[in-house]
């Protein structure tokens, strides 16, 4: 991984809140390669959301540097930066007074794309995230199910053809079936569109199933990173604890479905 220049790099990044009394992110260094799917796992208060927000300048670090394509993002225009990075918010973050089409087309509109181009992009994206154009185009967020809202959230993040997508617990509030379907769909999109994705989750099982690499945060610090196999090999007690749940699930599934029929 060291021979390829990272697309996103956190270099000794720190961020405190409440006049430094709370150290949300404490000296974190982390790199993400182009095309990689990274999951950041941690319990609430571990600093994972803060770390994600530092990547598109929703907040600024107290010290350290965040680079994208080698460039210190503190030197770039934050508005332009956010427009070229997709961001999927927890429980959607959709604008309740805008239709599905207007929500999806918002970033292209801010970038002043021609109207026809926005319209055709919105249609393409609705196909991509498997929403019915005819049915859903002119609906408002409150008329959608939780899963449909999150699909709109994903489509909105992808609208301006970003290379990077940041996701803040995108599937957390959904029922397990919807969640699995949406996660799989997204993983395919990540592959097909050659995206670089950083996803936050508190669910280690989800991270293991979706991500190429997993970073574990605790108390603002990065305690471990690597593939699922790498993590399984560490002797860090906290990482081990986090891996307990997926392991048990796997064992029970193994026991309940011994033939290992297709999932």
């Amino acid at each position, binding site marked *: 991984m060291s021979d390829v220049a990272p697309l996103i790099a956190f270099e000794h990044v720190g961020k405190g809140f409440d006049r430094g009394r709370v150290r949300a992110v404490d000296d974190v260094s982390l790199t993400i390669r182009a095309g990689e799917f990274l999951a950041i796992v941690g319990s609430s208060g571990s600093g994972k959301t803060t770390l994600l927000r530092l990547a598109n300048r929703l907040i600024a670090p107290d010290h350290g540097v965040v680079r994208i394509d080698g460039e210190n993002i503190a030197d770039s225009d934050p508005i332009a930066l956010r*427009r070229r990075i997709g961001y999927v918010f927890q429980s959607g973050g959709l604008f309740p007074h805008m239709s599905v089409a207007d929500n999806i087309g918002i970033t292209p509109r*801010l970038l002043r794309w021609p109207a026809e181009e926005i319209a055709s992009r919105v249609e393409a994206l609705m196909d991509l995230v498997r929403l019915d154009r005819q049915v859903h185009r002119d609906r408002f967020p409150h008329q959608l199910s939780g899963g449909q809202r999150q699909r709109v959230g994903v489509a909105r993040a992808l609208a301006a053809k970003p290379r990077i997508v940041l996701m803040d617990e995108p599937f957390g509030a959904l029922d397990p079936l919807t969640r699995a379907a949406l996660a799989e769909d997204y993983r395919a999109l990540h592959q097909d569109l050659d995206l670089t994705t950083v996803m936050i989750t508190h669910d280690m099982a989800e991270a293991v199933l979706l991500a190429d690499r997993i970073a574990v945060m605790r108390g603002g610090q990065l305690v471990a990173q690597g593939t699922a196999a790498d993590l399984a090999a560490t002797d860090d007690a906290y990482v081990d604890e986090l891996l307990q749940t997926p392991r048990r699930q796997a064992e029970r599934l193994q026991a309940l479905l011994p033939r290992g029929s297709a999932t």
Partner: protein
Amino acid sequence: MMLWSDPRWTDALSHLPDYLGSHIRVSLAALTLGLLISFPLALVARNRPRLRGTLLGFASIVQTVPGLALLALFYPLLLALAALSAQWLGFSFSAFGFLPSVLALALYSMLPVLRNTITGLQGVDAAITEAAQGVGMTPRQSLLMVELPLALPVIMAGIRTAAVWVIGTATLSTPIGQTSLGNHIFAGLQTQNWVFVLFGCIAAAALALLVDGLLALIETGVQRRSRIRIITGILAVLALVAAALVPSMSRARQAYVVGAKTFTEQYILAALLTDRLQANGLPAIQRTGLGSNVIFDALAAGDIDVYVDYSGTLWANQLHRTDIKPRAELLAELGETLAARDKVTLLGQLGFENAYALVMPRKRAEALGIRSITDLAAHAGDMSIAGDYEFFSRPEWAGIRKAYGLDFRQQRQMQPDFMYAAAASGEVDVIAGYTSDGLIAKYDLVVLDDPKHAIPPYDAVVLLSPKRADDAKLRAALQPLLGKIDISAMREANLRASGNNAASSAADVANWLWDRIGAPH
């Protein structure tokens, strides 16, 4: 009942276009100004807790000031500003009527707009504003595309509240010279013409409901993205504005303006003066219901051209004199001083006096052997006295008390028209009435003598504004009135006007008075 066939409805209706038009103009101007100030202030203050607290505190305090007082305060303030502007900038403006009303009402409209705009914007879910930032909106885009649309229902509710308040409170702008639906109400209250009062209230309420309804239409139009509703609402508001502007365009600009204070006699005399001017081919309009603190300044500033005041009032309030001189001497000195100091012309006396007088029921006075204030002094400790809203703070009262050593058990203030009935019924023992009031005879009351001449003379005098000082036509038109109205004529006129019947309008009584004092037949 005959209520709806009463000819006073027609009379009230004939004033409606003028009053309603002025009412709409002043209300909408105030509301527009209030919005132009409050809305940007709310945007600036929404993320600054200290400024927000200061602004909302200020607006709340303004709200606690009674509407009438707020309006009245703006008049002297603007008058001082106009004088400063004339001195330093070389131009002056009218501190009368429209301007002070618009400013005071605009101030009054601020609280609901400020509070609802700030509350509405703060009520937008933080997750939504963060998403606006996340998709790449600038703070301005976030405000315009996300926060304001989401806060709109709350903001509109504030604007609608402000509109209803302003339209209601605008009725109180009559005493500072702004014609409004309050003219119906003030005139009606003074002349006990309940048809006028009711008419003014209904018209103001209907206007408030109409504007509220139109704003609601625009609001639901925006929410439901219905162009038809938005356009209908906006067109209707514009139509209202246009309709309000038409009569003011067509009104004769050079009309003489006759002023009147807020009591019955003044309404009658203003109607009489107006009739005389019009009969002599001079276009004239009335500005009635003016506060007694406002009216002289308005005349001196040329906002009104002519009105009737009383020598004793001017002596005390304008010349700040507390000494008392014989009638003729006082008049002469008053005329000279006003001409020299204010360029105001004292044209002459009408012939009667409307002096303050201590008044009590005849039977009670006879039973107690009270003929003069000197006799009254011995009984005052067991008695209550009522006066109008200003009497007890006037120098005359201090003078009477001092001269006779009066000390009443209780003092009460009340609406002048109700005092006489209160005295007659024994609700109070003595009232500070007016000598020209017809109710003195009606209720069988008696005016107590003032042997020590503690009460100054109150000759009714006609005053002309500086710019009309040399107006020969005006002088000629008013000349036939001078010295012709004696106390019994005025008393009867006042009594007629206080009646609650169809012939009691100020205009009708003015006609009767003109006939009585010898109109050339």
